[in-house]
C-alpha cells in the first residue's frame, strides 16, 4: 500500500522533473535520480537506484532533439520503483513490466502538453497587440502548467489507483507465471543494450571504432580481474576469520578518466594543428590565442 503522503511527494516530483529537464537541466530530471527519490520516499533506496540505473542506461542515447517527444523514462522509473517496493515485485522485472510500458505511453501526454501550449502562444500574440507586458509574462509562465500536469496527472492517478492491479500482477509473476517473471527480469538486464546501440548510432563510430574496442577491452579485462578477486576475497573471508580485507568492484570513474585522457590528447592535437595554420583558411592564428577564456569554461 502506498501512503497518501508518498503519492503527494512523488506526484510533485513528477511535475518538477519535467520543468527541470526543460530549464536548468540539473540531472535531478534523470531516471537514476528519479529512482533515488522514489526509493527514499518508499523506504528502499537500493531498489530505486537499481530501477533508475536500468532506465538511465536504456535511454542513454535518446535525447530530445529539435523538440521531438521521447519516451518518458522518469515517470516510468517513478511508477516502477513505487510499485516494485509496495508490491514486492523484483526490481529487474519491474523495469520491463512497468517502467518501459509506462514510459512509452507517456509520450502521448508529452505531445498533449506541447499542443496545449499553442493556446498560450496565441494569447501572448494578443497581449503583444495590447502592450500588456504583464499579460505576456503571465501567459508565458502559464506554459509551465500543461508541462507539469502532463506528468503529474498520469503519475498521481496511477499511484493512487494502480496498486491493486500491480499487486496481483506481482503475485502471479512470482508464482504461477514464474517463467514470465524471470523473462521480464532477463529483459530488464538486456534493455541497457538498446541505450548503448542508440548512442552508437548517434556517435561517429566508424571514425572512432578503435576507441570503442579500447573501451570494451580495457573494461572487460579489469572487470573480470576485479570480479574474480572479489569472489576470491569473499571465499577466503568465509574460511579464515582473520582475513578482514574487503575488495571493491571496478571503479567506473577510473575507466571514464582513461577515456577522458584519450579525448584530451585528441583535443590538444586538433587545436595544435589548427593554431599552426596547417589546415584551411588564413586568419586562424590570432583566433587561437585570444580565445583562452572560452575554452576554460567547457568540460
Amino acid at each position, binding site marked *: 500500500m502506498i501512503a497518501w503522503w508518498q503519492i503527494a511527494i512523488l506526484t510533485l516530483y513528477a511535475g518538477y522533473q519535467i520543468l527541470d529537464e*526543460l*530549464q536548468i*537541466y540539473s540531472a*535531478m530530471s534523470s531516471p*537514476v*535520480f528519479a529512482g533515488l527519490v522514489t526509493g527514499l520516499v518508499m523506504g528502499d*533506496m537500493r531498489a530505486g537506484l*537499481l530501477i*533508475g540505473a536500468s532506465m*538511465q*542506461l*536504456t535511454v*542513454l*542515447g535518446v*535525447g530530445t*532533439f529539435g*523538440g521531438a517527444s521521447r*519516451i518518458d523514462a522518469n515517470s516510468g522509473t517513478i511508477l516502477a520503483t513505487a510499485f516494485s517496493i509496495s508490491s514486492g515485485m523484483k526490481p*529487474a522485472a519491474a523495469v520491463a513490466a512497468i517502467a518501459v510500458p509506462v514510459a*512509452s505511453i507517456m509520450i502521448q501526454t508529452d505531445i498533449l502538453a*506541447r499542443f*496545449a501550449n499553442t493556446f*498560450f502562444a496565441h494569447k501572448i500574440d494578443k497581449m503583444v*497587440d495590447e502592450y500588456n507586458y504583464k499579460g505576456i509574462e503571465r*501567459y*508565458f509562465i502559464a*506554459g509551465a502548467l500543461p508541462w507539469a500536469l502532463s506528468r503529474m496527472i498520469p503519475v498521481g492517478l496511477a499511484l493512487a489507483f494502480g496498486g491493486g492491479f500491480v499487486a496481483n500482477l506481482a503475485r502471479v509473476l512470482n508464482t504461477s507465471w514464474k517463467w*514470465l517473471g*524471470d523473462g521480464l*527480469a*532477463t529483459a530488464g538486464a538486456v*534493455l*541497457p*543494450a*538498446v541505450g*548503448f*546501440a542508440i548512442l*552508437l*548510432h*548517434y*556517435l561517429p563510430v566508424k571514425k*572512432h*571504432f578503435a*576507441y*570503442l574496442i579500447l*573501451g*570494451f577491452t580495457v*573494461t572487460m579485462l579489469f*572487470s573480470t580481474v576485479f570480479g574474480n578477486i572479489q569472489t576470491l576475497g569473499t571465499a577466503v573471508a568465509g574460511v579464515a576469520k582473520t582475513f578482514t580485507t574487503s575488495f571493491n568492484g*571496478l571503479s*567506473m*570513474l577510473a575507466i*571514464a578518466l582513461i*577515456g577522458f585522457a584519450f*579525448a*584530451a590528447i*585528441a583535443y590538444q592535437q*586538433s*587545436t595544435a594543428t*589548427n593554431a599552426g595554420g596547417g589546415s584551411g583558411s588564413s586568419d586562424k592564428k590570432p583566433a587561437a590565442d585570444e580565445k583562452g577564456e572560452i575554452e576554460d569554461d567547457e568540460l
Partner: protein
Amino acid sequence: MMNSKTPTYKLNDDDFRQINRRSLFGFQLGWNYERMQGSGYLYTILPQLRKIYGDGTPELKEMMKTHTQFFNTSNFFNTIITGIDLAVEEKEGIKGEETVAGMKAGLMGSFASIGDSIFAALIPAIFGAIAANMATKGNPIGVFIWILAQIAVMVFRWKQLRVAYNEGVALVTTMSHRLAALTNAATIMGVFMVGALVATMINVKFAWAPNVGSVPLDIQNSLDMILPKLLPALIVAGIYWLLGRKHMTSTRAIFIVLIVSVVLSALGLIAKG
C-alpha cells in the same frame, strides 16, 4: 518620447543578470508545436526591449512581434544568439530588425545541432553512465557527481551571454573551430565509454547447457575462455543493426528487445547474469 530613431539605452550588469535568470529558469516553458521557443525568446529579453524602445512605442510592438516568430535552438546556447541580437538592437534599434531576424534564423540551426550533441547527448551519456554504474551497486554518489557537472554547465550557460554581447557576430567564426575540436574529443570519450558500458552493464549469460554424451557442455564457460563479455557485445551489435533498419524507432526497438528477451529466457537459452 520617441524623438530619436537610434536608441540611447545601454545594457548593464543587472540586465544581463535578468536575461540569464529568465533564460535559465524560463526559456522553454512556452514550448509549443507552432512556434516552439518563439514566446520564450521574447520573454527572455522583454524587459530589455522595453528599455531600448520605450513602453507603448510602435517600434516596441514591431520588435515584440519579430521575437515571437518561430525559433528553436539548443537551450544551452540560446543566450549566445540573444547576446549578439541585443548588441545589434542596442546600436541600431528598429533599423536592425532585418539583421536580427536573419541572424536568429541563420544561427539557430547550427547551434541546435552542436548543443544537442554535446549537452543533450554526450554529457548525459558519460555522467549518466557513471551514475548508473554506481547506482547498480546501491551507491547514490554518482548522481551527485552528475549534478555537480551540470552546475558547471549552468555556469557556462550563464557566462556566454556577456561574451556574445561583447564580441558580436565575430564570435561565431572564432568559436567554430574550437567547438569542432571539442565535439571531436567529446565523441571519442563517448565511444570509449560505450565500449566500457557494454563490458560491464549488460548482465546476461547463456543458460543453455546441452549434454554432449553424458557431460553437460557449459557454453558460457567455453565462451569466457575465448572472450569474456562476448554475449553482451553480440547483443549490442545486433540491436545496432536493428536500429539501422527502415521504419525502426528507438521505442519499437526497446519493445522488440523486451519481447525477444522474454522468449529466449522462457526457452532457457539466456538468463540474468
